């Protein structure tokens, strides 16, 4: 076969997928209060005495509809778990490596995931007290909290 080696090469391409995500009524209220008031709100089940952040319209324990029981929680909390993202891809909000943590906010009973910055990866630990840093430019997304920083 008379095929020279330089006939092999790589073509760069991409696949673009348009999509839309509907936050729902509960999710929208959560995001709107975050965006307009810089306040983090959860939904409380009075029967189980649990506060869910991020909010859910139905109690995950007893199944009760709780969509109107809004309560405000603090913008401070405790890290209950974390991982270090070391792989970079274009859709990440920040460049790898970065810390993705589960944070239980003061006043909430469930943890939610967000980025922790302002601490070296080797010093990161479960139990760290953190405080939300709100974004200056809002986008109606969870990134209206820029990240969490070590508190104090």
């Amino acid at each position, binding site marked *: 076969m008379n095929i020279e*080696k330089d*006939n092999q090469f790589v*073509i760069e391409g*991409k*696949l673009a997928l348009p999509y839309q995500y*509907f936050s729902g009524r509960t999710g929208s209220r959560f995001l709107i209060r975050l965006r307009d008031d810089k306040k983090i709100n959860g939904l409380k089940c009075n029967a189980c005495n649990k506060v869910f952040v991020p909010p859910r319209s139905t109690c995950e324990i007893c199944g009760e509809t709780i969509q109107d029981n809004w309560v405000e929680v603090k913008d401070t909390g405790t890290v209950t778990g974390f991982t270090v993202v070391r792989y970079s891809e274009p*859709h990440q909000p920040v460049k790898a490596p970065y810390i993705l943590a589960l944070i239980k906010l003061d006043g909430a009973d469930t943890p939610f995931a967000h980025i922790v910055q302002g601490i070296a990866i080797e010093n990161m630990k479960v139990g760290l007290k953190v405080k939300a840093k709100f974004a200056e430019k809002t986008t109606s997304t969870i990134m209206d909290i820029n990240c969490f920083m070590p508190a104090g």
Partner: protein
Amino acid sequence: MDNKDKPLVTVADIFGTMESRVNPEGVQGVTANYGYIITGEGGGEWTVSVNNGDVEVKNGIHKPQVTTTCAAEDWIAITLGKLDGMSAFTSGKLKVEGDLGLLGKAAKFFHKYTPPVPEVTVADIFGTMESRVNPDGVKGITANYGYVITGDGGGEWTVCVADGTVKVKEGLHDPKVTTTCQDEDWIAITLGKLDGMTAFSSGKLKVDGDLGLLGPATKFFKKYVPASGMEEEVGEELIVLKQILSLPQKFSTGKVMGKFLNALKDKKILANKCPKCGRLQLPPREVCAICVVRADQWVEVGPEGSIATPDIAYYASPDPLTGESRETPYCSAHFLLDGCKDHETLWHELKDEDLPKAKKGVRVRPVWNEERIGAITDIKYFEVID
């Protein structure tokens, strides 16, 4: 809808406001008459004449190239975005006669229609409360709720709830909790445009007395509908995120496809030939798909040829490179290049301007890009040889 309430959105209003809603970019380069036959109560006949940027809406049908027939209620629903035009068409609610291709362009002719806004007053909100009582919501509650609404359209009201019955009185009468609020904010809260909790935490809404009574109060009444109809237009803000997710990809050509693509740089189109059955493969593949032997002989074909199968697309899927849908109609085709026979065709695009000439057997030639990088897009498209 009640007979006494005249609907605010009428077909006549939709057509009557069209000229003021023209989107200059949408009508650019289009010249055609669009006829509309709207049937049923409130219907009529209209012609939208588009003349390269100018739009005139006339009563009656005047030499349309395409005519749309639709019931008045469906046409209103389509205009308000409650009914998708495409699904109305496929379900037969909307019928089209004439040049269907013209309709795709028409979707961009006009800015969105917004219905006339009904006047909402604080007095009307309180005045309709007794008729909007939600029996489950007020059950077991006995308390007087005072409201001080400030501003020009404001006033004072007391909502007296006594275990299932509700009386709304003007003035303050021994309230257990009093809410003070600006008239425009109260209207916004009632219509769901302003969140009550947000209004409270930002100080727009002030509460004196037993705050705990306010929680149950959100369930006392059914939704307020402005006097003049349009019930579905009022609503709270809901968040939808629209994004284009872009995944980077890499494609290794291999030796055979690489040779084909490299040759395009020199304006050469190569096919490879099966040594056993003698058929050509275009674009080439390493093995003859029929004989399963290595196809190791190369033949230059074309570059001219003829259209074997034209395929005109009126509905475009999103372009994988951008996520956006391209302009329609466009034509992709299988081209039988000189030196090829039967199914030995190359799939590519036909120049947009040649669309009316897209017929089997028409002679074509490739149009090459100035800068060629070894990709199938080095051929811009094929054009008809006149």
